[in-house]
C-alpha cells in the first residue's frame, strides 16, 4: 500500500511529540511541587517567627516587627513564584532538557523548535527534516519518560516539613502555657468544674496539715496563752510548708487561689455551680434533702469523727487569716498615708471576701469531698454555719443563726480535753475597716484601725466564734483576727 509522502515522518513526529508532552507535564509537576514546598516553608517559618514574636515581645514591638516580617516573606514568596514561572517548561525547554540529560546533541530541541515554527504543517520543511525526524525516532528508546523524569518528590519537601513542624510546635506553646488555661470557674466549662471539684477537694488533704493526734497534742511546744503565741509566719506548719514541702505549699497556694476565684464569682455563676452540683432545681433538691436526713446525719457523724473536718476548718481559718491580714495591712496603709478612704474600703472588702471565702469556698469543698449532694447543698445554702435539722438544735448543731456549731473546728473529743482550748476576751474588738474608724497606734509603733463600737450580738459569725471552744491550732489565727492590737 502506497503511503503518501511525509506520512511516516508525521506519524513519527506525533509519537515523539506525545512523549515530549508527557515529559513536559512531569517537569512542570515537579517544578510546581518544588516551588510550592519552598513557598510553604517560607510561610510556615513566617508564621512560626510571628508567633514567637507575639509571645515574646510587646504588642508595639510585635506590630513593628510583624510588618517587615510579612513583607520579607511576601517578597520571598513572590520571587519564588516568579522563579516557578520562569522555570515553567514549554515544549522546547523540555526538549532541551532531554537533550542535555541524554546527550542527544540538540536533536530533539531542533525538532521541537522546527515544529514550533510550523514545520512541516504550515511551513515547508528543509531537505534534512526527514532525516532529523528519523534520527530522533531512532533514539526514542534513549529517553524513556521514567528514565529522564522519574516520579520523585522534591527534596524541598524536607525543609517544608521541618518548617511546618516548627510552626506547629510554636503554635502549641499557648496550649502548654499556664497563662492560656481557661478560667477555672465559668459558665462555659461548668461541667468540667463540677466533675473536677471533688478531686480538687481531695488535693486539699495534706497529711502534714492534720492536727497532731490527741496524745501528742499535749506535748506540743505550742504555747496556749495568747501572749505566748508565736507569729503566724513562725508557725510550725508554715515552717514545714515553706522549707520541707515547697511543691505542696505551691499546690495549696494554687488551690487557695482557685478557691478565692470561686468565692469571688458572680452570683449567677455560683448559682449555676450549685445547680450543676446538685443536678436538680433548688426547690426539688430541698425536698430531696428533707428525705435524705438519716443518711445525712450519718454523713455528719462520719465527718465529725474525721480529722478532715478539723483540717478543713483550719484551712478556712488560715485563708481567713491571710485575707484579713492583707485587709488589715491595706487598712493600715490607708491610715498611715493620707487617710485615703478607698484603701480602708479595700480592707473592708478583703474582710468580706474572707467571709465569702469561708462561706462559699472551703466550706463547700469540705462538703463536696463527702458527696456531691452534700457539696451541692452546702453551695446552695451559702451559710458557713450548718443548718439545724427541722429547725431545732440537734445533737451536733444549733438552730439556724442561734448558736455555734460545736463541731465548727472539728470534733472536740479529738482535741484532748478542754484544757487545750482558749476563749476570747469579751472586750476584744473586731475590725470593721470602715470610714470613721478610730485610728490608734499600737505599742509597736504601728498604726492600726480599730472599731470602737461593740459587736452586735446578732452577728452570727462573731457570736459563733466567741462562744466556741477554740482549739489551740487556731489560736494564732483568731488572735490575729480579733486582737489586732495585741498582734506580736
Amino acid at each position, binding site marked *: 500500500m502506497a503511503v503518501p509522502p511525509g506520512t*511516516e*515522518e508525521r506519524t513519527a513526529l506525533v509519537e515523539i511529540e506525545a512523549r515530549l508532552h508527557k515529559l513536559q507535564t512531569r517537569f512542570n509537576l515537579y517544578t510546581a511541587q518544588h516551588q510550592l514546598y519552598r513557598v510553604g516553608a517560607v510561610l510556615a517559618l513566617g508564621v512560626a517567627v510571628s508567633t514567637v514574636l507575639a509571645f515574646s515581645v510587646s504588642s508595639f514591638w510585635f506590630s513593628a516587627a510583624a510588618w517587615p516580617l510579612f513583607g520579607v516573606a511576601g517578597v520571598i514568596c513572590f520571587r519564588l513564584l516568579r522563579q516557578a514561572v520562569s522555570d515553567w517548561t514549554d515544549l522546547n525547554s523540555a526538549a532541551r532538557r532531554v537533550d542535555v540529560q541524554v546527550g542527544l*546533541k*540538540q536533536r530533539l530541541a*531542533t525538532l521541537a523548535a522546527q515544529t514550533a515554527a510550523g514545520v512541516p504543517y504550515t511551513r515547508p520543511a528543509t531537505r*534534512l527534516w*526527514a*532525516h*532529523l525526524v*528519523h534520527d530522533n525516532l531512532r533514539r526514542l528508546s534513549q529517553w524513556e519518560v521514567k528514565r529522564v523524569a522519574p516520579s520523585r518528590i522534591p527534596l524541598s519537601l524536607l525543609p517544608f516539613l521541618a518548617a511546618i513542624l516548627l510552626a506547629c510546635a510554636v503554635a502549641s506553646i499557648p496550649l502548654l502555657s499556664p497563662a492560656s488555661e481557661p478560667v477555672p470557674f465559668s459558665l462555659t466549662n461548668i461541667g468540667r468544674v463540677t466533675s473536677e471539684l471533688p478531686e480538687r477537694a481531695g488535693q486539699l488533704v495534706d497529711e502534714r496539715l492534720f492536727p497532731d493526734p490527741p496524745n501528742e497534742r499535749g506535748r506540743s511546744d505550742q504555747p496556749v496563752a495568747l501572749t505566748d503565741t508565736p507569729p503566724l509566719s513562725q508557725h510550725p506548719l508554715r515552717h514545714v510548708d515553706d522549707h520541707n514541702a515547697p511543691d505542696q505549699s505551691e499546690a495549696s497556694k494554687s488551690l487557695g487561689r482557685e478557691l478565692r476565684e470561686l468565692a469571688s464569682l458572680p452570683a449567677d455563676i455560683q448559682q449555676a455551680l450549685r445547680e450543676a452540683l446538685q443536678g436538680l432545681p433548688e426547690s426539688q433538691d430541698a425536698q430531696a434533702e428533707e428525705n435524705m436526713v438519716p443518711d445525712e446525719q450519718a454523713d455528719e457523724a462520719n465527718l465529725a469523727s474525721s480529722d478532715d473536718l478539723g483540717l478543713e476548718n483550719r484551712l478556712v481559718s488560715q485563708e481567713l487569716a491571710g485575707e484579713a491580714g492583707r485587709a488589715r495591712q491595706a487598712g493600715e496603709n490607708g491610715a498611715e498615708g493620707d487617710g485615703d478612704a478607698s484603701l480602708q474600703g479595700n480592707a473592708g472588702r478583703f474582710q468580706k471576701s474572707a467571709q465569702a471565702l469561708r462561706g462559699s469556698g472551703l466550706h463547700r469543698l469540705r462538703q463536696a469531698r463527702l458527696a456531691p449532694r452534700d457539696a451541692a447543698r452546702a453551695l446552695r445554702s451559702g451559710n458557713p454555719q450548718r443548718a439545724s435539722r427541722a429547725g431545732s438544735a440537734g445533737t451536733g448543731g444549733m438552730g439556724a443563726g442561734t448558736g455555734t456549731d460545736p463541731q465548727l473546728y472539728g470534733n472536740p473529743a479529738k482535741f484532748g480535753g478542754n484544757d487545750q482550748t482558749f476563749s476570747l476576751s469579751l472586750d476584744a474588738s473586731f475590725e470593721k475597716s470602715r470610714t470613721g474608724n478610730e485610728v490608734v497606734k499600737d505599742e509597736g509603733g504601728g498604726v492600726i484601725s480599730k472599731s470602737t463600737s461593740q459587736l452586735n450580738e446578732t452577728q452570727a459569725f462573731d457570736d459563733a466564734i466567741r462562744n466556741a471552744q477554740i482549739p489551740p491550732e487556731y489560736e494564732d489565727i483568731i488572735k490575729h483576727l480579733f486582737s489586732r492590737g495585741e498582734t506580736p
Partner: protein
Amino acid sequence: MSETPATDVVLEFQDTVERIQSELAKVIVGHEELIQNILIAFFAGGHVLIEGVPGTGKTLLVRSLARVLNLSFSRIQFTVDLMPADVTGTRMVMDRDDGQRDFVFVRGPIFSHVLLADEINRSTPKTQAALLEAMAELQATVAGTTYQLAPPFFVLATLNPIEMEGTYPLPEAQLDRFFFKVRLTYPTHQEVQRIISSTTTTEEPDVRPVFTEAEAVEKVLSFRRLVRDVLVTPQIEEYIAAVIHATLPADAPYVNATDPARVRLPRDELVDRYVHFGSSPRGGQTLLLGAKGAALLDGRANVSYEDVTRVMLPALNHRLVLNFAAEADGVDSSTILERIGRSATKIQR
C-alpha cells in the same frame, strides 16, 4: 521507519568525506583534524588560510585535495613583484586568423576551482586585493569587464610565519574573507618517520578522485547546499551571537553600548586588555556554517553546541585584531578564544 532520501544524502556526504580523508591520508601524514577543517570550509563554501612553517606539506595537501575532488587546480606563488594581472588575468593583443589584432582576455590562475595562493603575504597589498574580489564575490574585474568565476571556487592560501622580512601582512578585510585559518603544526616524531619513508622511494602514492570529472562540480555544489540545509535552533543562533559579541572589547569603537542582548557572556579581562577589535558578523556566519558542516560530518541534520565549539578556533582566530600589548605579552588569539569558549558553555541552554 525506512531510510529516507535525506538520510541517504547525509550518509553519502559522510561517505564522501571519509573517502577524501582516506585518499589524502595516502600523501599527507597526520593532520586529520586539519584536513577535516579544510573539508568543512570547502563544503561550506569558504576559503582557508593555512599557516605553517615551510616543508610541512601545505602545497602537497592542496594539490592532493584538488586531485581527489577531481576539480581544476591552479597555483600562484606570491612574490613581491607579483602583479594583480598575474592573478586575475589580463587583456592581451592577439592576432586573429584574418590578420587583424584584437584584445583578448587571457584568464589568470584565479579561474580555477581550487586555487593555491602560496605565501600570500609576500605579495603587495595591491595584488592581495586582486584576490579579494574573487574570494568574496566569485568574480574578477579586468579592464572594466567583470568575469564570473565558475563555482566551486576554493582558495587555499598559505602563510609562512617564520620569514616575516619583506612580507606584507594581510589586511583585516582580507583576513576576514577567509573562512578558516588553520595552523599546520610540525609533525610528530612518528609522522616525520612515516613522511621520510613514504616519499623517498620510487613508489608514487596513487591518489584517486572520489568524483568523476563530470559529476564533480555538481556533487560539490550539492553538498554545499546540503550544508546550508542543516537545521539550527534559535538558542544556538543566540549563543553564536553572544560569542561574537564577547570578542569585542569594552571600548571597541562602533559598538552599540546599550545593546539589549538577552543572552550575553560575561566580559573577559583578556579581551578588554589585548583585543583591539573583535570578530565581525561575518565571523558569526562562518561559525554557524562551519558548525553546520561539522554537524553534517557527524551525520546529524542539526547543529549542536559541540559543533560550534569545535569550529570556534579556526573560524575566529584570524578575526581578532590584537594590540601591541598582546604581542608584547605573547598572548595570541587562540588563548583568548579558548577562554571565551569555556565561559560560553555556561550560557548553553
